[in-house]
């Protein structure tokens, strides 16, 4: 990358809670904050995996989270939609705010709040997790009809639209077992989009794929990013991060070390840990 950096960046505080970008440097397409991760800590037993993570994601922003294995990226993503209950902190998605409450995780009100968050944050998994006993279309209309209460016709219409978006309209009647890994992940994306969430969470969506199938999934994701889908993506695909990210977040040992525009974090990192991580990447 050429050294054409925005001039007003200044040095960010080195603390784990380093802020997001100053408003003035935001690209114009980016809107108001829609996801807020506030002081999240997560313990697995004695293992302190997330050590105070703060993160804000704005509308139409594509945030890529990088960091080495075990740094807590997956855990962070799973805490955002409460597949893991955070130990301390709060999550807010589209004005639904839920405080970590591990002791009362089974309270009805708390669970309903969590469900409201999940409706607003679609999740994509490494292993796709399509429902094998339903065909592609059924996968995509199951939750819209039964959870959102949409009519079947409306749900089918939306599902077909999103299958078109991921380029798999002609597979609507296939069962997942007859799809390639890349197609499965694209269907999973269509399934998540069919719920019309405010933000998509991707956890290494291509790491279970054969190399030749990675491109088709990243392509879809890049299109989504460029068309203004808000997303948080945990990824090891650096080229993709550089192309599609509005912001890159580097995590280590359960804290955010550094974040900023991809050309800055990936090409001119401010922190030694980031440099270290990226250099390791080169060696592989």
């Amino acid at each position, binding site marked *: 990358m050429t050294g054409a950096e925005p001039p007003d960046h200044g040095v960010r505080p080195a603390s784990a809670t380093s802020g997001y970008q100053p408003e003035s440097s935001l690209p114009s397409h980016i809107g108001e904050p829609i996801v807020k991760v506030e002081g999240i800590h997560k313990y697995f037993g004695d293992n302190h995996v997330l050590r105070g993570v703060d993160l804000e994601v704005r509308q139409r922003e594509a945030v890529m989270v990088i960091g080495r294995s075990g740094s807590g990226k997956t855990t962070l993503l799973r805490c955002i*939609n409460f*597949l893991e209950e955070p130990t301390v902190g709060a999550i807010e998605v589209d004005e639904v705010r839920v405080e970590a409450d591990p002791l009362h995780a*089974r309270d009805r009100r708390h669970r309903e709040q969590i*469900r*409201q968050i*999940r*409706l607003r944050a*679609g*999740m994509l*998994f490494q*292993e796709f*997790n*399509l*429902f*094998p*006993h339903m065909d592609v279309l059924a996968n995509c209309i*199951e*939750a819209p009809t*039964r*959870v*959102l209460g949409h009519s079947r016709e409306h749900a089918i219409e939306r599902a077909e639209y999103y299958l078109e978006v991921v380029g798999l309209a002609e597979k609507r009647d296939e*069962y*997942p*077992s*007859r799809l390639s890994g890349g197609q499965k992940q694209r269907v*999973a994306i269509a*399934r*998540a989009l069919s*719920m019309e969430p405010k933000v998509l969470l991707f956890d290494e969506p291509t790491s279970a794929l054969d190399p030749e199938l990675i491109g088709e999934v990243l392509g879809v994701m890049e299109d989504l990013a460029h068309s203004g889908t808000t997303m948080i993506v945990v990824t090891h695909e650096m080229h993709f991060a550089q192309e599609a990210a509005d912001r890159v977040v580097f995590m280590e040992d359960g804290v955010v070390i550094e974040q900023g525009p991809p050309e800055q974090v990936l090409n001119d990192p401010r922190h030694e840990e980031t440099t270290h991580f990226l250099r390791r990447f080169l060696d592989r």
Partner: protein
Amino acid sequence: MTTPSATIQPPPLLAEIIESQRQRRRWFRGQFALVWVALVGALLAALWATDNIDTEWMVTWAPFIVGGAGTTILVCVISIVLATLLAIFGAIARMSSNAILFAISSLYVSLVRGTPLLVQIYFIFFALPQMGIRLDAVPAGILALSFNYGAYMTEIFRAGIQAVPGGQREAAQALGMPEALVMRRVVLPQAVRIVIPAIGNDFIAMIKDSALISTIAVQELLWRAQRAGTRDFKTLQALLIAAAVYWLLTIIFSYFQDRLEQRMARGDR
């Protein structure tokens, strides 16, 4: 010729190998059938040699006895369905973090597995009337079999539910599906597929266990055999017929179960 034809197996040899393999398999099957026929034939011949077998009686009474198979099958089909439903609830309750549900279901399983089926049958038919609950023989038999098999199948279903990959539940939850919907629409349908072979096994076992409800006068296969046999002092003949029918039923259902299992194995998973 540019193709190196010398390196390709000459077709005649391959055909020969296939043919010899086929022959060996045919020979194996032939031997197998032969041994079965010989053994069963010898058994029957030995019986007939005792000169106690009244073939004419058997021919006369066979239709009456075999007719009991209808009741046997009907009772078992209804019972396996009810047992499956009980087992689904039992399994969900046993995996629940609700102490009351857990306690009820584990008591159920423990009680049923800790007592003989025959005692359960007697209890329902002979003891419940003392408490003012009077059931006809057939409903009592069905109740006993469902109740008993439901407990054993609870464990099967629990294993089946646990065998559904955790990612399935998570994906459903992530779509905002409430717990009950996740179970009903995503986990259970997959668990049922996993346990269908086991249900088939239990159905076949139940066909045989259902002979016990002859003791409360359900007019199924064994009851009819005993009824006819004792009437004419032809118990041996009557039981031979009953045993043959049970055997045949299990062979038939095993065959269907095998086919079902094969189909599931290459099904959409």
